């Protein structure tokens, strides 16, 4: 029932064009070495509640840097950045992060890994165990609750990491190439599941990738970034209806959009 109301909130964000702005950046930039190396030139962007936004670009375009600034893990060198109206000063409990590597604790079972975020903030209750089990079922791992990470495949490890991310209760999910290390087939499958899950929980999502097709397929909006120096070159709206199926990627409209993004990147 919770998922229902969240799903409604999400479709609401779609129909009403002026949803609340959840993440707002004005001239957000990052330099290293006393300003001699520019990782990201000032970027302006707005992300609305429930939106799925992809950050796409080649290595060195500053997409991971931008994500880490939103996460509050690194300080920005210039500009303003606000999450839920508050200036970002450090990691927040309503922002969750997932990496290319699952970074599971290998001495903990899948269940205990999912419980980690809660365990770090308060004492666990039996409801937490139930919730963690539900989340594992949601990512399709109901039969691997008590399995240790080393006994899981790479794809399954990322599923556990996703369940752990959801257990934080964060309504903003930052995903840094979460399935980038997996094979094509597994990645496509997990992308479809990710779309379903994110819609279910009604989260706002920022998804970093270097795959143009993936970026468009998943997102409501694609932030196209170019390197040397890192720059937010253009924001492209993705008009396709949801729910989307894999076949969407075969349509001419989809490929036209891929060509458009590629053209922006192609100059570099």
């Amino acid at each position, binding site marked *: 029932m919770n998922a229902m109301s969240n799903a409604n909130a999400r479709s609401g964000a779609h129909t009403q064009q002026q949803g609340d702005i959840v993440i707002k950046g004005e001239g957000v930039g990052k330099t290293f070495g006393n300003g001699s190396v520019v990782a990201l030139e000032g970027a302006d962007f707005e992300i609305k509640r429930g939106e799925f936004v992809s950050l796409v670009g080649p290595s060195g375009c500053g997409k991971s840097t931008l994500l880490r600034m939103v996460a509050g*893990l690194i300080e920005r060198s210039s500009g303003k950045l606000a999450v839920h109206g508050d200036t970002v000063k450090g990691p927040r409990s309503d922002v969750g992060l997932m990496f290319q590597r699952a*970074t599971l*604790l290998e*001495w903990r079972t899948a269940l205990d890994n999912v419980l*980690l975020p809660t*365990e*770090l*903030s308060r004492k666990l209750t039996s409801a937490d165990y139930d919730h963690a089990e539900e989340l594992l079922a949601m990512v399709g791992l109901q039969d691997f609750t*008590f399995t240790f990470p080393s*006994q899981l495949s790479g794809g399954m490890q990322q599923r556990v990491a996703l369940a752990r991310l959801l257990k934080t209760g964060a309504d903003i999910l930052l995903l840094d190439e979460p399935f980038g290390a997996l094979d094509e087939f597994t990645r496509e499958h997990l992308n479809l599941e990710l779309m379903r899950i994110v819609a279910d929980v009604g989260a706002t999502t920022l998804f970093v990738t270097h795959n143009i097709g993936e970026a468009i397929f998943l997102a409501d909006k694609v932030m196209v970034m170019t390197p040397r120096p890192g720059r937010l070159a253009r924001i492209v709206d993705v008009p396709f209806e949801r729910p989307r199926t894999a076949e969407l990627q075969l349509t001419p409209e989809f490929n036209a959009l891929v060509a458009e993004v590629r053209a922006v990147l192609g100059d570099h």
Partner: protein
Amino acid sequence: MALAEDISVQMPGAKRAGLDMDRVAKHLAIFVGLIALWEISARAGWLNPLMFPRPSAIVQSFYVIYIGTGNAWYHLYITLTEVFIGFLAGSILGISLAVVVGLNPIVRRFLQPYIIVLEATPRIAVGPLIIAALGFGFTAKIAIVMLVCFFAPFVNTLAGMVNVDRSALELFRSLRANKWQTFRKLMLPDAAPTIMAGLRLAMASALSGALVAEFISSNEGMGVLLDRYTGSLNMGSAFATLLSLTLLGFTIFKSMEWLEAKLIYWRNDDAMARISARKRVQMKGAK
């Protein structure tokens, strides 16, 4: 179908067990042969009885020192006590100091040169200095074992703490874990396999350390016993003492292996399977 499967599973298993029995028998035959050859050579006078006492004499000595007079027990007890107290004190000190140093980069920077100097010094060479400072008693011997057992756990713990996975640290930071939580739930378990390897090294040198300490300064312990028997040319008892130490070393090695499998269960498939099964049952019970 099920039957066929059973057979196909059991057949190679049974074959392997048969082979193992065969191998054990061969090993046993070779061992018995060697001992017999030794016994015959000694009796025939081909071997110098001062260097190589007869196996039967060694067995007899075993009986004398453990049951007849039973005097070896006390020395065994002394050596074991030195090994364990020295090992525990040395490794606890090593691990704790490494944790403090590992968590404080500034302390690490200033301590580093001293650690390198100490590490380059042969530990046993410090033995006589310790005896000069602490006298010929039990304390000096414990201190020598401690010194021998300090470095491996210290160096390994430090390495384990410094090499903690960076993305895992970033994860803990994004989850707003405090320093203690990050240490307790990430750094310590992550370093555990490396720390354990250090403990194994320390334990292996603890026995040697205790024996050397006894050789240079003591009037009790297995080292003294060995020294005394060799000095009085009682080679049967000397060999019995030496073999006791071999057995002791082997037992220590095996216990450390067992402890490692218990503590670092996530590197052991059987242990993981057992824990998974137990947790599954517990969860069912709770519901």
